[in-house]
């Protein structure tokens, strides 16, 4: 397994506030790494550093062992694709046109095939002539994912790919992402849903207040005590059976006192 991306001792400071403290992370071929943590933990910032959008104050990012500063914008586009939380398209482009945008500034031979196969994988071929803006949020999410896939990079960085999807669509999309990983791609993704990470990730990285509190296999790392501490709420992890991984649920207190203001 080759190292695809690695960040070493990364710290980010924005407006005098330290957002990431000394984060080290590596992902190899055929690996799905989930970045987890409460709101404001620094998940999206970490993804931004990994994408090359943010230059950290200290620490270095390596792509395939090479320092990220050696790569231009167009080099990076061949190495990693990034799925942002939300994309607003400013003019009425069609689904097909948007997926094709994943191929970047210069279209080449063979691009058409990549666009077609990305649309087939996300099952959006029959909405290719529809306007992006008339689609439901779930459909838009699939179009965006198809655009990322059409970019055809080894590394994919995803920011909450399932956030707007219903449970059926979520399982389907995660299934597609899992297949891509099993075929050898590397995915690093931010998730809010701990159960998605539990079922699909090879490895999880837990963040709280910009610090890395743990990392490892989901079943070993996402324990009731760790999660309760990180999310500051009592959380239980219940085993269902060996096939379906354990389920993470928040504990409802019967008489929850109103928080004092």
């Amino acid at each position, binding site marked *: 397994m080759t190292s695809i991306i690695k960040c070493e001792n990364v710290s980010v400071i924005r407006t005098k506030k330290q957002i990431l403290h000394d984060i080290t992370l590596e992902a190899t071929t055929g690996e799905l790494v989930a970045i987890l943590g409460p709101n404001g933990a620094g998940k999206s910032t970490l993804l931004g550093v990994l*994408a090359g*959008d943010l230059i950290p104050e200290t620490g270095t990012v390596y792509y395939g062992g090479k320092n990220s500063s050696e790569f*231009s*914008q*167009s080099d*990076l*586009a*061949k190495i*990693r*694709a*990034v799925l*942002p939380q939300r*994309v*607003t*398209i*400013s*003019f*009425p*482009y*069609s689904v097909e*046109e*948007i997926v094709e*945008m*994943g*191929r*970047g*500034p*210069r*279209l080449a031979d063979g691009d058409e095939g990549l666009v077609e196969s990305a649309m087939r994988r996300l*099952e*959006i071929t*029959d*909405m290719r*002539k*529809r*306007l992006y*803006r*008339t689609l439901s949020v779930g*459909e838009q999410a*699939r179009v965006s994912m198809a655009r990322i896939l059409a*970019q055809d990079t080894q590394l994919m960085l995803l920011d909450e790919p399932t956030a707007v999807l219903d449970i*059926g*669509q979520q399982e*389907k999309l995660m299934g597609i992402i899992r297949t891509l990983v099993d075929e050898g791609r590397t995915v690093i993704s931010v998730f809010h849903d701990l159960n998605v990470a539990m079922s699909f990730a090879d490895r999880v990285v837990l963040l709280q207040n910009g610090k890395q509190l743990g990392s490892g296999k989901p079943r070993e790392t996402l324990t009731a005590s760790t999660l309760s501490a990180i999310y500051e709420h009592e959380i239980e992890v219940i085993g269902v059976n060996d096939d379906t991984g354990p389920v993470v649920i928040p504990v409802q207190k019967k008489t929850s006192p109103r928080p004092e203001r």
Partner: protein
Amino acid sequence: MTTNPTSDLRRLNPRIVAVVLLIAFVIVIFNALSTGAYTIRLGELIRVLFQGPARDASGDSVAHAVFWNVRLPRVTLAIVVGASLAVAGVVMQGIFRNPLAEPATVGVSGGAAVGAVIAITLGLSRITLGVQVFAFIGGTLATAVVYGLSRVDGKTDIVTLILTGIAINALSGALIGLAVFVADDDQIRTVTFWSLGSLGLATWRAVAMVLPLAIIGIAMSTRFSRTLDLMSLGDRPAEHVGVPVERVRLQTIAIIGLLASSAVAATGIIAFVGLIVPHILRLAMGPKHRDLLWSSALLGAIVTLLADLAARTLLSPAELPLGVLTALIGAPFFLWLLRKMRTGESTWS
């Protein structure tokens, strides 16, 4: 995951649009060449055209003189300026990610006019390209200022964009007013010309100055057609697919400055051509810039030719300033578009 197997694209084939526009272009050109204070009939028109610009000894020398010295330079200038303004509008809307951006409404033409007026007041109109260079500096500076001020978190806020445009237009109005205050009578006439916009001073010299800049600007803009499509994803996602956004921004601002300022330097402020033309074409055949750029150049030329034809025939023998006419038509259109966007009926088109 069920999908709805429909298409909601109501787009015309670009080839059909090209044919329609080309036919309209030729018809409008012939009309513009023959109509005016002195009517040149079609047969005569073709005859003087084939005689060439050299003075005609045998035939009707009036038709010959009107055609070669008045009509043809005017029609050529209308084509060049209209195409430049429309293409500047397309590029501007692309990098601002906003269909309301247009050289005149956001203050770029105003900036160019100020540059031109300053050059005239300083007596630089005697120097070749003196006015044009100042107009270019003014227009490009205004573009950069508007761009810098109206962007929040990588997006152009409509309200800020329009307010910035109002402020810059007010400032250019004031500076032009100041120039009128210190200028002598002769200069005042030319200075007023800049703020109202007209093709009345069209000469071959004016054509010769604008034409190369327009060709350079339009040719350069076509290199950005794919990039402008990608920019509609937003700055960050465009970067992620390999667009060097910062560099593209600087280059396109220079193109807008070049096209809008050279147009303004030749004819004064002609507003709203850059707004209406791309909008109509986007509705007709979709937003892809590859088709939008050439078709806007063509329709921009047609619209400007028609507007100029109306300006010089509606109240003939008096002539309406062209800029006044385009603003009379364009401003209500702008308000309608603004209203449509603000009520969310259509976020962008």
